[in-house]
């Protein structure tokens, strides 16, 4: 999976999660810029990525992600 594949998957997940087809994530997107992407849906998002890709984020990772790009980078590293 390329970074762009992962980004596309993230967009699909967040659209499903928030029932909002208008969302398109970029590497620079920050959580607070996406309407309704609150802390509960952040956990749900992380859980969905973990289920979908069979990866597992550490507690330190989840607290440190500044933007979507950082989540993509960590995911890529775990898939490698």
């Amino acid at each position, binding site marked *: 999976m390329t970074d762009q594949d992962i980004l596309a998957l993230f967009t699909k997940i967040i659209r499903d999660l928030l*029932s909002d087809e208008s969302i398109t994530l970029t590497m620079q997107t920050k959580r607070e810029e996406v309407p309704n992407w609150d802390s509960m849906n952040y956990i749900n998002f992380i*859980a969905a990525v973990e289920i979908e890709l069979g990866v597992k984020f550490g507690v330190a990772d989840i607290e440190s992600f500044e933007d979507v790009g950082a989540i993509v980078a960590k995911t890529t590293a775990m898939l490698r």
Partner: protein
Amino acid sequence: MPQSPTFMDWLPTLSDFRGNLRAALAISDSGNRLEKLANIAQHRLGFLETIQLDQAVSRLGALEIPGFSAVRLAILASSTVDHLVPAIRVACLRRGLVVDVHVGAYGQHRQDLLNPASALHQFRPQAILLSLTARETIAGVPIMATVAEVDKAIDRQVDELRNLWRKARETFKATVVQQTFLDATDTVFGSYDRLVPAAPSRLIARLNDRMSQAADSESVSLLDVARASERNGIDAWFDRGRWFQAKMEVSPPAAHLYGDLAARVLAAQRGLSKKCLVLDLDNTLWGGVIGDDGLEGIVLGQGSALGEAHLAFQRYALQLKARGVILAVCSKNDSATAEAVFENHPEMVLKRTDIAAFIANWHDKAENLKTIATRLNIGLDSLVFVDDNPVERARVRESLPMVAVPELPEDAARFVPCLADAGYFEAISFTVEDSQRAAQYAANAEREDLLGSSESVDDFLRGLEMSVSFGPIGTLDLVRATQLINKTNQFNPTTRRYTGDELAALAAAPENVTLQFRLLDRFSDNGLVSAMILRPDPGEPEVLEIDTWVMSCRVFGRDLEREAMNVAVEAASRRGVRSFRASYIPTKKNGVISNLYPSLGFARVEQTVPTDGATRWYLNLADYEHRPTHIARISKQHD
């Protein structure tokens, strides 16, 4: 998507979730749309699919839709549970319950229950689920504590729970479900933990034992996530990361299973658990095809792993029968060939007499299932159909969506866990009557045969040689009477529910008249099949209101309602009561008795029609004409 241990593999897969969801959302009629969404809910759904489906249902808003029951559920928790709500709602929809959920403020369950100004009070829950962690209790007990000290801490916790349960019931008249404490602890000593009373795992095991006993005595139902986590593994249920991040004690990937377990209990409290297990024969009860392989050729019993697997499945079916699940057979076979296996194969655990309705022919199985439901006098929605053949399963699901059809695995060794994990027969109590029920249904089928050979209904009723014993609802009747009051949906004019304690209080109150009826006939003792609660109007002791009257559907059409009214009128007259009042409050299920009160001589009380469509009825006891029946009395009522 990778399979998780909490995967619900008994549900069939849905090939195009998005397409189906879109199709559902395009339906403008809200009833039809909910039907379609409920159909999607019958399938195996992923984490995101569950959330999407729930959002589609939520968009319909709170409405009354025929065929579905609305329930207001409050979840009071000392961990984060918001992420479980979509899965609970979807799993309830799977069972025809449309649930409005209120999640109490985190860790505020005591305040919520006690404070009349809380949002919980405004919500007016009909069901309350308490989901608490054992962390506080464990933290309060030092590791060197003695058994007595541990018990003291546990008792304190259980006493507090008992108070919360009572408060929940008294304030809201809600049914209460208590979640068992999840054991997410780590070993301290290793194997020696088992010998240390205050070792966290021991403490939780003991806490769960004590709490369960207390819950049973308070008519509180259990949601046993502790047991479920042993089945799937604690790591599938509890994720430390999620606990540290969000104080979730149930991890998001386990949400859909949690939701299903919770929905089973809520459905069981409303009498919606399945009642009958319908079994296919070839390659389900034994390996091979009896018509081709013959008695010697089929694989069953010791000496073959496959034969033992089928034997284990038969044993499990027999175990279910022993707890009151009705067994039936629906097979494509010649009837004589199929029955011969039950009579003549030495390894058969199931006997022909264990099967209440036996249908082996070459007709369509969906049609045969309808016949089975009719012969047993139960709804099609009470059936679970087990068949190894995917084509038959798909056919039945297609034409009878209300019949539960587990997606049986190919390997016969996994038939039992598939059926057990699916939780179709969830119980909230177990009585002597339950254990006899399967035999009673078998007797019902024999009665049907008698009906077929009788000249008239009168002839049939006379041939049954029925007798009734009756009396006030006593201590020994409480468990069964409570069960009947809470499970009966059809013969139930008011659909009022009472807990064991409440019923005991009603029965003990001297101003009330309570009655219980047991019906016997030449085929079986049907046990306690009807209960009645009559209460005086405040200030009008000469008038009794029929607060509750329930009768098991097993004895419909036997004139028992007429004999019961004869008995009630006599008992009330002896006390100087002059008249009865009664209400019929229509529901989706009690249409069968819409004519009950006029048929017993009650007159309609004219009134402005209330919103629930209830009708009010009145009977002057002096005018009552004793109703002739074919039921003899075998005991005098003692006041």
